[in-house]
């Protein structure tokens, strides 16, 4: 029986305030509280509240047959607690249906796996606890920041007793193989690997409102038809995308919310198809083959590598300076300082310093609150200088 697996990433970074070299040692906070609140509330109005409501309706309408999963970052959950508890409540209501799986990730949406194993484990643990406390679930599935993945990560995650892990179904790791299969990570015995079907996922996430796209306009029955075409038994079609796709990246006036309302019904018209969450797929499917991914792969840009965050001298300088402070930070034994250091790890800060303008420039600019990657770097380094002084 083929399955459709929907996972939505929910994240908003804590954007920094404008911080010049003259602000160092002035005892200022780093985050732009007002701006973060405004953005969160804006996205809540456009996306989180209406989309959660639709999801709840759909789950009720189709009984247990429409099932979804979320990965919500710790920094996002904290912002919801502070700025918009209504959204948090709506996620809790979704959790109460029993049809929603909440995934594990690093609490601070960080790149810690690449720089500090201790820090990585602690952040995953923090996030696990947070999810348990808010939604009453102990996550069974892990997804790393920006879907960054390799063999080493899979081995660590298996030892942490997860049953499934998610990654990008990038061409260069799959070759001729299909993303619609469950794989076994190289070096693992139990862990199951689910790969994003980037073509179908991006048809919704990126191309939905693109009038130049030959398939425009994308309707739910057309999309369901594409899914039904891959009807061989044992297949799983993994649709992974930012939750903000619904109403924010794709505005409501594109028809994205109507698409969402109609989508489960169209898929379920085919009696063979069902919706499953990642841990259910891991439970029900045997791996088709082992998959060897020695080098890190991500879901970003055309390269699907790490260059969106650590691809140029600015990013490398900043991130090494940050992780170089770990020992000093821990030595303070000060929970407040540890938390500030961890907030500085959020991958978005490094994404803003990306200079890969020309090929992928549009997406980068859309998400970048800075005028240029150079401004982002200077701002970050000023903050780091202030923080370094404080410890």
């Amino acid at each position, binding site marked *: 029986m083929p399955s459709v697996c929907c996972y939505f990433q929910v994240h908003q970074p804590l954007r920094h305030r404008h911080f010049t070299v*003259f602000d160092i040692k002035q005892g200022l906070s780093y985050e732009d509280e007002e701006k973060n609140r405004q953005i969160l509330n804006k996205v809540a109005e456009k996306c989180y509240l209406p989309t959660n409501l639709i999801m709840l309706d759909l789950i009720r309408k189709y009984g247990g047959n429409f099932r979804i999963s979320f990965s919500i970052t710790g920094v996002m959950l904290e912002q919801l607690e502070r700025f918009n508890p209504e959204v948090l409540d709506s996620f809790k209501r979704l959790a109460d249906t029993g049809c929603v799986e909440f995934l594990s990730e690093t609490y601070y949406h960080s790149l810690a796996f690449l720089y500090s194993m201790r820090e990585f484990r602690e952040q995953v643990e923090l996030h696990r606890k947070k999810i348990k406390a808010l939604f009453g679930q102990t996550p069974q599935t892990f997804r790393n920041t920006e879907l960054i993945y390799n063999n080493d990560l899979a081995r660590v995650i298996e030892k942490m007793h997860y049953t499934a892990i998610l990654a990008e179904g990038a061409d260069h790791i799959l070759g001729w193989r299909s993303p619609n299969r469950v794989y076994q990570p190289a070096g693992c015995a139990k862990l199951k690997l689910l790969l994003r079907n980037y073509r179908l996922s991006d048809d919704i996430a990126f191309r939905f409102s693109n009038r130049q796209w030959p398939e425009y306009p994308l309707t739910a029955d057309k999309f369901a038809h594409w899914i039904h075409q891959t009807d061989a038994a044992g297949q799983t079609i993994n649709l992974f995308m930012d939750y903000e796709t619904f109403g924010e990246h794709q505005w409501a006036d594109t028809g994205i919310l109507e698409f969402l309302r109609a989508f489960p019904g169209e898929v379920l018209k085919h009696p063979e198809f069902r919706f499953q969450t990642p841990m259910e797929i891991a439970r029900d499917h045997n791996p088709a083959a082992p998959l060897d991914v020695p080098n890190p792969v991500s879901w970003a840009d055309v390269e699907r590598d790490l260059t969106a965050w650590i691809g140029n001298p*600015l990013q490398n300088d900043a991130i090494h300076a940050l992780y170089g402070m770990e020992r000093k930070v821990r030595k303070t034994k000060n929970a407040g300082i540890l938390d500030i250091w961890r907030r500085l790890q959020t991958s978005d800060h490094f994404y803003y310093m990306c*200079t890969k303008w020309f090929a992928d420039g549009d997406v980068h600019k859309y998400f970048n609150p800075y005028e*240029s990657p*150079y*401004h982002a770097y*200077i701002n970050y380094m000023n903050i780091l200088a202030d923080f370094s002084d404080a410890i």
Partner: protein
Amino acid sequence: MTVHAGIEARRASGRPYIYHVHSLEFDRSGENINRQVYDVERYGLENADHIISVSHYTKDTIVNRYGINPDKVTVVHNAVSRSEGRIRCRIEKRPGEKIVLFLGRITFQKGPDYFIEAAARVLEKIPNVTFVMAGAGDMMPRMIERVAQLRMGRYFHFAGFLKGDEVERIYAMSDLYVMPSVSEPFGISPLEAMLYDVPVIISKQSGVSEILHHALKVNFWDVNELADKMIGALRHPALVMEMTARSREELKNIHWNAAAEKILSVYRRVCG
């Protein structure tokens, strides 16, 4: 000032008259414009068969301040010449010494006063910096006075008007080039600095900022911001490395041939 000659030449020859704008009275004088000069410019713009401006920045001024139909104005950005015999000068500097360069006329339009105020703020944070102001102009005496008043004469050199290889030498010596112009129709000098792998900070009130992605851009009046970016460039080698490497790539696509092609196509179109 050649406007009348141009219009007269059109009358005599019966050929179209194209006004190629490199600078306007608003650039030179801010809001305190000389009315007579403005009237001549306006007369020239209104009567031109077509107008070429060196930037969108200048085109906006032509449209908004002179009431010209935007369809009549084509933007052709300037470029930069690579002198054939350019030697990569290796200059001996004191260890750790950094040089920040201002090169241009010392006049209201070029914003030398903002450069000096920002320099004072930089010196609060980094002691070993030398600021070079190369050029001459009516604001020079006042600028020298201001530097003395801020007691930073020993960090400041007024190099006077430089020529040819002296200009090349000073570019090659510099660690950072700053163009804080109040109003710059284009501004070729940052491109020249980039030829020497010098990172540049330019004001947003410039035409050249429209074509450069790997320069730091600030509002000319924002002294704090300018100083912050100067310190950033002086302190972080990674920043300089990335900016200069990317600028080198960008410069490859900025050459006079492309500008000439565009101008030629305007001429062809106007001459029908």
